[in-house]
């Protein structure tokens, strides 16, 4: 029986949400193709947390989570995953679209001369291969590709797939041997810089409150931050305010920033230029606050308030606190 191998990331002893999305998809593919569903967990993970993963139809858990691999090391990850692929000969290797997934999947693919399809939003198993949909041009267009050669490496677009549990299932656990590599030329992690204030990242948040040029000046983003705090949301920004130096690039949503799809996206003082639109159009619910009733954002926002955001946002904060 062939197998599918999913690369699962754990952080602070928890499986990351983007990896739970991978687990949901991998069990679906495994079932359709009658493959063994094997997963390797890398990072910082506590085995006692198995309730997080025991409902995804997993057959085998390969535990690669040790102190050695707690933080990301391209070399250690690469060698561990290549070793497993060599041993298990999976037909499909599935990654998440996380920062680690984006860095490691091309390394694996190039070493094995396998094809890599990134940012998949739909994977259809057919008799003679796979039909995969992925957004291009930041989602302005959807591309359908067909692959009929295996093995194939795929990575999923984050925040796109539903996390879907299929009921409890027993699985076997094997420890993976992680070998340190000597005399490596690979990049080594020296330090992790945490933000001064614990903040949610737009790429992982389920609610985003974003501000644009309509905020008028950088100081006024205090309002956005306050609203974000009340909603337990991440702060987002348009390209205009990032380019003006009001906000860091890590908050930029759009074609040259992050492409997000939270449950709720509140856009304040953002006109909705195409550059921004493609970054957030897949949000489940979009709320726009803008004083210009002709702003393009009202064409695709689910709910709009035409008015002065300096009156509306404080009112919103008050009402939400009630």
């Amino acid at each position, binding site marked *: 029986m062939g197998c599918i191998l999913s690369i699962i990331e754990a952080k602070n002893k928890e499986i990351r949400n983007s990896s739970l999305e991978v687990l949901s998809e991998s069990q679906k593919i495994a079932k359709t193709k009658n493959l063994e569903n094997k997963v390797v967990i890398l990072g910082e993970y506590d085995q006692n947390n198995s309730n997080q993963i025991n409902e995804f139809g997993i057959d085998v858990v390969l535990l690669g989570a040790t102190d050695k691999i707690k933080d990301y090391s391209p070399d250690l990850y690469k060698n561990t995953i290549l070793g497993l692929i060599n041993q298990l000969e999976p037909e499909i290797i599935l990654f998440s679209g996380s920062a680690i997934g984006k860095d490691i999947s*091309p390394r694996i*693919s190039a070493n094995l001369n396998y094809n890599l399809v990134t940012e998949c939003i739909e994977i259809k198993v057919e008799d003679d291969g796979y039909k995969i949909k992925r957004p291009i*041009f930041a989602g302005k267009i959807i591309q359908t590709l*067909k*692959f009929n050669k295996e093995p194939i490496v795929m990575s999923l677009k984050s925040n796109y797939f539903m996390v879907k549990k299929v009921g409890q299932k027993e699985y076997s656990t094997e420890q993976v041997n992680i070998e340190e590599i000597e005399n490596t030329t690979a*990049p080594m992690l020296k330090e992790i810089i945490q933000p001064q204030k614990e*903040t949610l990242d737009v790429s992982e948040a389920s609610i985003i409150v974003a501000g644009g040029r309509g905020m008028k000046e950088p100081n006024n983003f205090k309002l956005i931050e306050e609203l974000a705090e009340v909603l337990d949301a991440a702060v987002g920004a348009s390209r205009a305010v990032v380019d003006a130096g009001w906000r860091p690039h890590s908050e930029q949503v759009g074609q040259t920033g992050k492409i997000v799809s939270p449950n709720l996206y509140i856009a304040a003082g953002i006109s909705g230029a195409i550059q921004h639109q493609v970054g957030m159009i897949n949000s489940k619910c*979009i709320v726009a606050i803008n004083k210009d009733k002709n702003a393009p954002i009202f064409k695709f926002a689910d709910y709009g308030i035409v008015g002065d955001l300096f009156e509306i946002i404080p009112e919103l904060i008050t*009402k939400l606190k009630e």
Partner: protein
Amino acid sequence: MNIAVCIKQVPDTASQLKISEDNKSIDENGIKYEINPFDEYALEEALRLKDNDSTINITVISLGPERVKKSLTKTLAMGADEALHIETDEVIDDCINIAKIIADEIKKNQYDLILFGKKSVDQDNNQVGIMIGELNNISCISNCSEFRIEGNKIIANREVEGSVEVFESELPAIITHEKGKNELRYPSLKDLMAAKKKPINTVKNEAGKDKKSELIKLEYPEKREEGVIIGEDKSAVTKLVRILREEKKII
């Protein structure tokens, strides 16, 4: 020091794209091509290194059809020393094949630093620079927002979810660059005119021999339904909160 910067020519991000009748390509009529924004940030980093050390030699490399030359000329006007056009009229879909072609060209020279944008904004693949690192056995740090060189080492800040990872590597190294902190420069008309006289080296490639994927179709995403304006002032807020809490149940 020898630096290579790999750039891709892509439709301007403000373009309204139209799918051709074959449903497999973009209608090129009326499309303005520009240098991929992330590649421009990578190039800017190289130019800033050269601003401080004129002995640095920058080669800009681009794979693509004839029109790519215009972007290469622009980089020469911005301050790059040499331009290499890897000519192909074929559209190569598989990143691994693109990576192999560029990797072969890179191998022919001794570069200390090879810069890429983290991804191209047309195909959003996020693969080629990292793959070339593996193919040529060069250390690669991806998704960097800034880096500095100290002696034979490079120290780079890699942007990840919610934090920044500082990686260190020996040279030669590959960096794939995020949007940087530095403002981009624009060439003057005079520099552009002068650059037109500079040579662009051209090589042909044998692409697409090992085609791995087949493009079935392109389509537009589903349109969002037009929403509703729920009010014109702060009195709409109560209604909004009720919708989000009770109807949508998302807060």
